């Protein structure tokens, strides 16, 4: 009897799902573990660090010597500029548009709302080739050439544009939740719509701004396809394209070095992720969930 009750109380209902989850997650766990291990190893065999003679051991900091390379820091700076201007641009443009779409009655508002929603599903990658022509055209326009092909400015603009549908939709949702009386009070106190937006409503949606900022920064910091497609100039490249170049090298790839640069790029992302998981989950789920 005791044995039976013991079996019955064994939490199969928890252990089985847990085990299955663990099995599915093996590649991720091994992969992440390897990235960390290998950055401090001369070389690795599977998950085991080895030295140059092929024996286990061989821990080293040599893979991090790239940190002394000024080029890496220039690329880091470029990446940082891309990520911060993207964040700033997305915030500015989408909070303004989100405000108008949520709160101002104007002709075509519904059309804009509809297209904003639909554009979230529209894959911007299908337009990359055509965007190349747009950027070439901008390059030819005097004064605007800093936003043209092969410039960081152009990459930033394209990146902002691709993030806009999500950003606008999110901001609109946050503005929707602010009570109307607050804005009415501000109007009666003597605010213009612009001042109401800036001084009364924006402070109310700080959580939304924080979430969108973190999200945009991560997108910008990690972005690969747009810089890769529209910047051939090595001087203005970003870390992602740099790592890709190391990986695609015809000479045998030194995975440990690549992993170190990769970890270097990954650290700020993980850092943000740990502290803002809940916000980010809300964005991943919320952006498209408007309709459900």
């Amino acid at each position: 009897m005791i044995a039976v009750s013991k079996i019955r109380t064994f939490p199969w209902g928890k252990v089985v799902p847990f085990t299955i989850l663990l099995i599915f997650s093996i590649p991720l766990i091994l992969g992440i573990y390897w990235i960390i291990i290998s950055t401090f190893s001369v070389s690795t065999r599977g998950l085991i660090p080895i030295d140059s003679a092929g024996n286990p051991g061989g821990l080293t900091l040599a893979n991090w010597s790239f940190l002394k390379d000024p080029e890496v820091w220039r690329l880091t700076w470029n990446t940082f500029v891309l990520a911060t201007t993207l964040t700033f641009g997305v915030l500015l443009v989408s909070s303004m548009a989100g405000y108008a779409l949520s709160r101002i009655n104007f002709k075509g508002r519904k059309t804009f709302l509809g297209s904003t929603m639909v554009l979230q599903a529209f894959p911007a990658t299908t337009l990359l080739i055509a965007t190349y022509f747009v950027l070439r055209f901008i390059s030819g326009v005097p004064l605007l050439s800093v936003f043209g092909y092969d410039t960081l400015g152009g990459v930033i603009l394209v990146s902002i544009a691709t993030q806009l549908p999500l950003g606008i939709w999110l901001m609109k949702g946050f503005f929707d939740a602010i009570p109307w009386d607050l804005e009415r009070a501000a109007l009666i106190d003597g605010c213009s719509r612009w001042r109401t937006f800036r001084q009364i409503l924006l402070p109310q949606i700080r959580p939304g701004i924080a979430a969108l900022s973190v999200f945009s920064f991560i997108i910008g910091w990690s972005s690969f396809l747009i810089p890769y497609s529209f910047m051939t100039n090595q001087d203005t490249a970003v870390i992602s394209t740099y790592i890709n170049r190391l990986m695609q090298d015809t000479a045998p790839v030194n995975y440990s070095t690549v992993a170190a640069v990769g970890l270097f790029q990954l650290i700020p992302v993980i850092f943000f992720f740990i502290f803002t998981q809940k916000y980010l989950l809300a964005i991943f789920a919320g952006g498209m969930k408007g309709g459900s």
Partner: protein
Amino acid sequence: MGLKTVEEISADSAFSFTPGKSKLGNKYDWLIFMGPAMLLVGVFFIAPVIIVFIISFTDMSSLTGFSNWSWIGFDNWIKIFTHPQSSQHVGVTVIYVFFTLVFFNVGLALVLSILTTHIPKAAGFAFRALWLIPRITPVVVYIMMWRYLMADSPYGIFNEIFFRPLGLDTSEMVSAHPYIAIILVNGFIGASFGMIIFTSAIESISKDMMNASLVDGANIMQRIRHIIIPQIKWPLMFVTTFQTLSLITSFEQIMILTDGAYGTEVWSLWAYHKGLNNYFGQFQWGFAMALAGILVIISIVFCIAYLKFFKFSDMIQEPKIETL
């Protein structure tokens, strides 16, 4: 108050107010707010869509340059159907989309969401966070990780700790099993989207209904079959269609992993190579635009379907201030 007299105002206002003449705020103030967004969307979404279709009717290429091209009607579009490689690209795209979708973006996503909602909260949250990492990791770093996971012995992790100890043959898995490689790599990113959506849907199923099914004696499989799946029907349909479109048009991971080698050049990557990036630096823009045009048409069809699907007009709240 320094205002107009009654007569002056009554004269032009009377009992009807044309909004255009209204002095209640500036009618065009919204343009200030919408302007930047409209400009960017116009330049980087609408203009490119138009460009795709215009150039697809030309023979523009790196040989003709931007000035010596000519209109060739539907030649590029016809060429798609006669091109000897078309069927191969369609084939790999269908295989890639179908298996990634079924096994990972919907299938695994569903499994993950059900399992993580049936273990203690903190553990469930930790697993979901773990599965989000591929999505937020810079894509090149993520692909690098997979390359190493799938590398040949004595380096590759799968080979070293699973296959070799079991006495199986080892191989460089990306080239040996390229389809499996691209499906795995994309699937591990794609699963998290559905996982998050399904999780919030499952968590919003009423606890009473779950408990009622327990009282009725349903085991977990019956519960999934008869309670959870029917209750999350809408999110299931949404994730399936949304991810289908994403998969058809995405190529970033495949490009970094194989760059289309070993027969993995999906349709969108084919277009990208033809039009923007290839080893020889020879571009057939006209043809590439027709290839991309197919994807744009598919996307537009999906998007129009969404607009109907979403019951969009129910979601709009009317502005409750009219002075602008």
